[in-house]
Each structure stands twice: as structure tokens, then as C-alpha cells.
């Protein structure tokens, strides 16, 4: 399907659309990112490594990527269930629930953060029941996971939903007529069909959670080494006019994110290659 500019193609506008796409991506993504790199490379190598490998910074990477991964994983499981319920069953208020799913996108993340903090603090509606069990959510890393789960909920639901809707009922009927039980049908027929969408949803949720700032800073408590996320560290450096230090940490974060997303994409492609 690849159209090279030399080969005449039936589809018009190759040069125009490619030019626009590249120009747009440069303007929106590449140039700002290049700025961060340029700023970071004003540092000497020793300075750069000293900043990005400082213990406090290392702890923040672990926290940021760990909580983002956990939140994305939780949403993959529960997002699948939400999508399943929305596609497979009819119940009163279904449209309302469907609309509710998108709400975390629309809500200012700071509002989400403050609300969740209030709910999960030791005297909040939910927090007061967790306290006797010895579970502290607000102002701990678990609080970060809660906030990230909230803001990344729609991704898995919205990527899996259309694929589930397109699944032919006949394929499941065929499996049932061949003697497969419900669980076997899910595991062998439905799950392989939605796996790519599930992985895409996971990737989107993961990427979104890595970059999340607004909601997390309210619920995290922001203790250095314990509950301080990398984006907060970067903002902290900016506030101290340490632009180059902020750029250095950003560059590392970008690099890790890029490598992780690339890996997931490769996984996706590998999965597809096995099928076709």
C-alpha cells in the first residue's frame, strides 16, 4: 500500500498530505522536543549524568513509570469489563454510563486530584473506612495510582468498545456449536480478537499516565524519594530557574517513554504478523 512519490498513485494529494503531516508534526511535536534536547546538551556530560542519576531523580523515575504501568494495567482489566458491559448488555441508564466514561477527559485534572484527595484522606468518605484496615491512600504512592487510574480510564474502554461491537455473533455461535463453553469462547475466540485493541488502550493509558501532573501533585504528598513524581521534579527545577537541569530530566523521561512505547508497538506488530 506504500505510495512512493515516483510511482503514480490513484490516490491524489500524496505530496500535499505528506508535506502537511510532516510540517504539522514538526511544529507540534518535533520542534518543542528538540528544544528540550538542545537545552539539555548545553550541559557537560558529567553534569548531565550527575543530574539525571541523582538518587532523588532515580526514585522519581521508578515511581512515575511504576505507578503509570500499574494504573494502565488496572484500567486494562476493568476497562475491558466496562466495555464488555456497555456492548453486550442492555440496561436502563446505559447511555448515561457510556457518557460517564469520557468524563475524566473533560474534567480539569486538578479538580480530579483535589476531589480524590478529599475522598481518600483519612477522614474522607472512602478514606475513613480504609484507615482501620491500615490502608493509607492519600499522600502515598497508592494515591498516585488512584489518580492515574481515574484520568486514564477512557482509553481502554474506547479502544476496545468498537472492536467488541464488530465481533460477529456467528463466530461465537460456531464455537458454541463445536462444544466450547463460555470461558473457552472468551479465551480462545474473543480475547485474541480484542487483544490488539486492548494493547493499544493500555499503551495510550500508560503514556497518558506517565505525563500526568495536575491530579497527582494534590494526592501524592510529594515526599522526596517516596511520592515525588518526575514531572514534579522538573517543575521544581524550573521554579528554581534550573532550566538545563529540567531539560536534562525531561530528555531522560522522553527517552524512556519512547523506548517503552516502541517496545509495545513492536509487540503489537509481532502479534499481527503471527496472524496474517
Amino acid at each position, binding site marked *: 500500500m506504500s505510495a512512493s512519490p515516483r510511482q503514480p498513485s490513484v490516490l491524489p494529494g500524496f505530496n500535499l498530505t505528506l508535506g502537511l503531516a510532516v510540517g504539522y508534526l514538526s511544529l507540534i511535536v518535533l520542534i518543542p522536543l528538540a528544544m528540550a534536547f538542545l537545552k539539555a546538551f548545553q550541559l557537560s556530560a558529567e553534569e548531565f549524568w550527575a543530574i539525571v542519576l541523582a538518587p532523588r531523580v532515580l526514585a522519581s523515575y521508578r515511581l512515575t513509570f511504576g505507578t503509570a504501568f500499574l494504573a494502565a494495567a488496572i484500567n486494562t482489566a476493568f476497562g475491558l469489563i466496562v466495555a464488555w458491559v456497555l456492548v453486550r448488555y442492555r440496561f436502563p441508564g446505559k447511555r448515561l454510563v457510556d457518557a460517564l466514561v469520557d468524563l475524566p477527559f473533560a474534567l480539569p485534572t486538578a479538580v480530579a486530584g483535589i476531589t480524590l484527595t478529599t475522598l481518600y484522606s483519612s477522614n474522607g468518605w472512602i478514606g475513613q473506612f480504609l484507615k482501620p484496615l491500615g490502608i493509607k491512600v492519600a499522600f502515598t504512592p497508592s494515591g498516585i495510582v488512584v489518580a492515574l487510574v481515574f484520568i486514564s480510564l477512557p482509553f481502554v474502554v474506547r479502544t476496545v468498545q468498537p472492536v467488541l461491537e464488530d465481533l*460477529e455473533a*456467528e*463466530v461465537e*455461535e*460456531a*464455537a*458454541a*456449536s*463445536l*462444544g*466450547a*463453553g463460555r470461558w*473457552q469462547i472468551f479465551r*480462545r*475466540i474473543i480475547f*485474541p*480478537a480484542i487483544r490488539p485493541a486492548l494493547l493499544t488502550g493500555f499503551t495510550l493509558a500508560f503514556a497518558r499516565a506517565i505525563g500526568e501532573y495536575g491530579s497527582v501533585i494534590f494526592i501524592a504528598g510529594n515526599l522526596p524519594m517516596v511520592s515525588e513524581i518526575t514531572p514534579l521534579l522538573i517543575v521544581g527545577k524550573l521554579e528554581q530557574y534550573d532550566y538545563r537541569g529540567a531539560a536534562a530530566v525531561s530528555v531522560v523521561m522522553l527517552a524512556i517513554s519512547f523506548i517503552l512505547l516502541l517496545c509495545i508497538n513492536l509487540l503489537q506488530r509481532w502479534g499481527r504478523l503471527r*496472524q*496474517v
Partner: protein
Amino acid sequence: MSIEIQGLHKRFGAFAALDDINLTIPAGQLVALLGPSGCGKTTLLRIIAGLETADRGNIFFDGEETSGRHVRDRQVGFVFQHYALFQHMTVFENIAFGLRVRPRASRPPEPRLRAKVEELLSLIQLESLAGRYPSQLSGGQRQRVALARALAVEPQVLLLDEPFGALDTKVRKELRRWLRRLHDELHVTSVFVTHDQEEALEVADQIVVMNCGRVEQIGTPEQVYDAPATPFVYQFLGHINLFHGRAHSGWVRLGGLRLRAPEYQDARHVPALAYVRPHDIDLLREPEDRDSTLTATVSRVSILGSLVRLELLQTPGGEIAEVEMTRERYAADPLKAGDLVFVKPRQLRVFLQQDAESTSPVHWGGHGDGI
């Protein structure tokens, strides 16, 4: 395994999809459910499979009531019009699926399973494509895989829902002959749904003609074609000519034609319809006697391969009739457009119009187009 269906009813909202279906399918036969789209044939097939439940009525497999049994426990093989293959599995795995999902105790060991699948692959003549995915196969190949997949579990009954409906004409013809041969080898009780009368006539042992949720006629291909039980069957199977006239005290008068019809002894000037197949008509140059022929003029002659089709315009009334004859017979007396002929039906079936109207729409004075 024989299938017996008693008093089956099914409604979708206000629409009666099946209305009192009674049917017996003897073991080992290949039966066609034939009818126009929306006549309930697919619904009936799906109820037999257990993919749909009836509102009322019973289905017996070998005398055993099955209504309460789940589709996975019915031991039916189901083949869908659009194949419904598992896209993410190879041809081999598709066929093996039914064996792999068996409970551990009855699951065949891997070598036996492989042997079984390979045997089925050779049956469908696709040994070389075992490693392909369904998206890499042609429609005919996909349907053969779907059939092998259904046969892998050794079903007691094979149900096929318009199995050749999505294929082009040539593949369709090949595949239905192949299905017939396969059935002659395996003798598994099979029911297939079709709206294609040619397909039903060619392949089936028995044809069940359905219309509007009811069974119109059950019989061998010869029976339903030569002796249709209702006007609907007449119109649905093959081409027909329709003449209208009146029945009165055991006689039917159609234009100049007067016929004995002892079954309508009690009729008093009741409008009647007569059905004649285009190949059941003789054309004469001279009138035989007053009451046995209609007069008409030839309006068009078309030569269709081995057949010649003549279009006639009846002189009184102007109704159009179609006649088919072989090339040899036409050559013996080549009629031309404009010739006056005397029409003598060799075989003709009369239905009173109230019956006819209650069962089917009627083309006035035209010719039914066999679908």
C-alpha cells in the same frame, strides 16, 4: 439420527417467523429447506441447532426431546453462510478447535488429533493450505474449511445455513456437487437452507418448501416439481404460465379451453387459476377439437442454447404465455412471430382462486418467474 419437529411456533414481536411447523427428517437424508427470504427457514434451522429457542413446540433427536439442551451439547455441526471461521487461527487450528475444547477426559491425544484433522483436510482437498489463515483463502475454500470444522466433532446432524449463498455461480455448482458426494460417503443427517430452487432440486433427497412461516410441501425433488401441492410451490419452483378462468360443477373453463375437474364438483362459478409449465405445452397448427385448445399468436421466438422459447399472445384476452421446446422439435415445425397457433396444455393444475389468493400473490395473466 432422525429429527422430528412437532408444533413449532416462533414469533419475533408481532411477526410470526414460524407458525405450527411439523416435520420429520429421516436419519441419513439430505434435506433442503427451500423458500423465499423471510419465510422462516433460517429460523427453523437455528432452532434445530439450539442457537434460537422456539416459543412452543418440540424437537426430538432420535425420539429424544432436545429443547432444553444447549447448543454445545446437541452434537450438531453448523455451517454459516459467511463461514464464521476463526480469523486468528490457521486452517488446521480451525478444524481442530472442536476437538481441543473438549473436556480433558474425552480430548484426543495430540497425535490422534493431528491424524483426524489431516484426514479432514484431505477430505476437503486442502492439505497444502493447513498453515494458512482464513483471510488468505477464497470463498469456496473457506466454506470447505467451515464444513471440515463442523465435521471434526463427528456431529449427529449437519446443519447448513445457505452454505453456498456467498459464492459465485461456478464455485457454487462445484461445491454443491461436492457436498452431495460427501453426503453419500458420510450419510450424516443433513439439513440445508437455500432460496435457490435449482440447488435444492439438484442436491436434496427431500425438499421442504416453506412460505410465510409455514410448510407448503414436503417431498422428493420430483414430487415438488411435478406435483406441487399449492399454488405457491408451483410459482416458486420453475417457470409457470398462469391462465385464469372459472370452475363450475366439475368443469373448468379457461377461455376456449374446457376441462374435466372432478375435484371441483361442488364449485359454482368460482374463479379459478390454472398453472402450466412452459415445457408442458404442445403447439398445433390446426385445432384438434373445440374444447381442448386455446388460440394464440406467436409474438417472439428466442433460441436459448438447447431450448427454444416462444412467447404467445392469446387471441381473446391478450394474456401472455411462454412455451419451451427442444431445438429438434422446433426444427420440425419452425414457427415464426405472427403465426397463429393452437395451444394444448399437456399437464395443467387448477386451483380455485380463493385458495390461491389465501396462500400466495398471483401474477394476473403473466408468467411466474422461478427464482
